[in-house]
């Protein structure tokens, strides 16, 4: 069993997705229950499905000094980093602590594989074309390497690629390193962009819906894939800390199947329990849970049952993938940001897209948006290969 942990301060955070660039765009869309999914117009042979696409990346190359990193995934990361004063916060941390005391710990499932795919579409005599002869792009570490280079950071730099739990797990990596004194601050988060690998890949598994995804609907028909980037800056809590807190996390494995969750949600339940133990709270203390809720048959079935049996009706719960699509390796961070907004604004986001509740769902589900104070909240992220993570957040001063 894990031990309770000292909370960490979230000094800054931001997100960019189909809902727009930065926190206010997300807060407005969530408040208006206005989703960002659109008919798929991505790739040369678009599948008949809906996607959560970030507008304008095609016209937003990286600054010239970072040109060797230029690709859709790093562009999206750069756009996200440019919102909400996040860059300034990272530069300030580097100034205060030194470049080697700030880590870059980022999650992604496919990183910049879109650039590798593009190279294969226009091979030059069987070789990568000259303009994509950039080894830094053709590796899962492209995103973290880019962010470390962009801020000139020289601390630990790690990519976590555990599919859809990736950018949730990095909060745990950061907590361990800070607690042991290896670093003083960490840039955590993640980025995943639309690419053929995931669109055609999830399509080959027959997991992609032909309509906008409907998490926890009795008639749900699969996922909608989206793209997103989000980042958070984590530091120790000090007397003057005002930001929200990371109070716990849990990580566990299903040990069941590569692409299907454990039928009783065993790994998800262990991750949840460990997050509560680290946070020193009980299920009844939780005001809101941002669910993984992908709208796949199995995930929602297992997660609905887990929430229904584990929490009182006063705990509110919703999936926000109906707003953004499933942003895969970026989902953990995007939904952490959405959870922190729910806490900031006292508003529970709707479980957008569902019209006929799955009877497995309990009274915790917020089918429509609600006004509700959120002092303590969780965010669930479950990935392929049975890889589960659960994050716990709180307002300053909580748990009391």
């Amino acid at each position: 069993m894990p031990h309770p942990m000292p909370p960490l301060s979230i000094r800054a955070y931001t997100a960019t997705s189909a809902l727009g660039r930065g926190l206010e765009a997300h807060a407005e869309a969530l408040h208006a229950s206005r989703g960002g999914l659109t008919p798929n117009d991505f790739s040369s042979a678009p599948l008949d499905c809906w996607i959560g696409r970030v507008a304008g990346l095609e016209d937003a190359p990286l600054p010239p000094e970072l040109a060797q990193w230029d690709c859709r995934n790093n562009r999206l990361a750069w756009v996200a980093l440019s919102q909400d004063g996040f860059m300034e916060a990272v530069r300030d941390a580097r100034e205060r602590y030194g470049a080697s005391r700030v880590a870059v710990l980022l999650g992604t499932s496919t990183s910049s594989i879109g650039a590798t795919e593009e190279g294969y579409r226009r091979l030059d005599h069987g070789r990568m074309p000259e303009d994509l002869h950039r080894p830094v792009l053709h590796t899962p570490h492209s995103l973290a390497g880019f962010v470390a280079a962009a801020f000139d950071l020289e601390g630990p730099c790690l990519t976590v690629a555990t599919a859809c739990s990736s950018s949730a797990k990095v909060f745990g990596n950061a907590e361990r390193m800070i607690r042991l004194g290896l670093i003083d601050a960490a840039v955590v988060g993640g980025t995943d962009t639309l690419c053929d690998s995931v669109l055609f890949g999830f399509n080959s598994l027959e997991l992609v819906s032909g309509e906008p995804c409907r998490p926890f609907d009795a008639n749900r028909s699969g996922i909608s894939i989206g793209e997103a980037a989000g980042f958070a800056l984590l530091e120790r809590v000090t007397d003057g800390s005002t930001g929200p807190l990371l109070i716990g996390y849990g990580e566990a494995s299903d040990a069941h199947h590569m692409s299907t969750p454990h039928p009783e949600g065993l790994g998800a339940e262990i991750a949840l329990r460990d997050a509560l133990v680290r946070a020193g709270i009980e299920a009844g203390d939780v005001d809101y849970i941002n669910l993984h809720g992908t709208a796949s048959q199995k995930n929602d079935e297992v997660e609905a049952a887990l929430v229904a049996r584990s929490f009182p009706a006063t705990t509110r719960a919703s999936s926000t993938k109906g707003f953004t699509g499933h942003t895969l390796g970026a989902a953990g961070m995007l939904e952490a940001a959405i959870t922190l907004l729910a806490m900031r604004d006292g508003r529970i986001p709707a479980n957008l897209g569902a019209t006929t509740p799955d009877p497995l769902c309990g009274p915790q589900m917020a089918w429509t948006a609600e006004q509700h104070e959120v002092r303590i909240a969780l965010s669930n992220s479950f990935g392929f290969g049975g890889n589960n993570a659960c994050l716990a957040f709180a307002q300053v001063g909580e748990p009391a």
Partner: protein
Amino acid sequence: MSAALSVWVKGVGLWAPGATDWDAFCEIVAGRQAAGSDGRPVADVLPPNERRRAPESVLLAAAVAGQAVRMSGLDAASLPCVFASAHGDQTITDYMCATLADTPTELSPTKFHNSVHNAPAGYWTIATHCHASSSAVSGGETTFGAGLLEAATLAVADDSDVLLASYDLAGAGPLGEMTATTGPFAIAVVLSPRADATAIRLDITPSPGNSGTRPTGNAWLDGVAASNPSAQAIPLAHALAVARSTALRVAAARELDIHVDVEGVA
């Protein structure tokens, strides 16, 4: 500068071209045996049907992880695990990109789910009934050092034994020219945060700057070390094989090494 992370090496596993397991590697390092021919990695932790179908990345990672856990005498079912790889299964990525360029709707669903970076972690936890945390990480060209730092951090922070497996494959196709990995290699260690007089101790400290690697002077070892990012474990593997106290530096990130004091068994 922070205090060192102290961990004890309870088990080691290794596969290199010419050394099919840790014992064979130790014999070669001691000069009692020459590097042999390439043997297929023996991933006997996987059920036979999974072993037949498993991609190379999974075979390689599960083979060395199985060796290390067996030597440790610990139960894999309760052991948190970190699987590190700079590039994951390049053979599958090459297949995926080639298929997506030509006939995207014919993409194999099995290849797709085997293409995720955490495929070895997934197959390993399924085969060993492990419900502990599992991770799949990359640190690019400094993957081994980054993975070792992560695994030692996890062991000390959670006061738990931890399995680290680091693997990379030979490059394939146009992607292979970019990754410049010339051969497969994998290593695994089981690290314990608790003192063990019969085990080698590693004191690991992050240290600013990259000092570069020093050749061991053994042509075979140096050839393997240069073959892929996981093989940057070779100097540490050499130190563990000869079980002598020494100090070495392993690159863990851009402008960051980890300094490793290896304390042999007295």
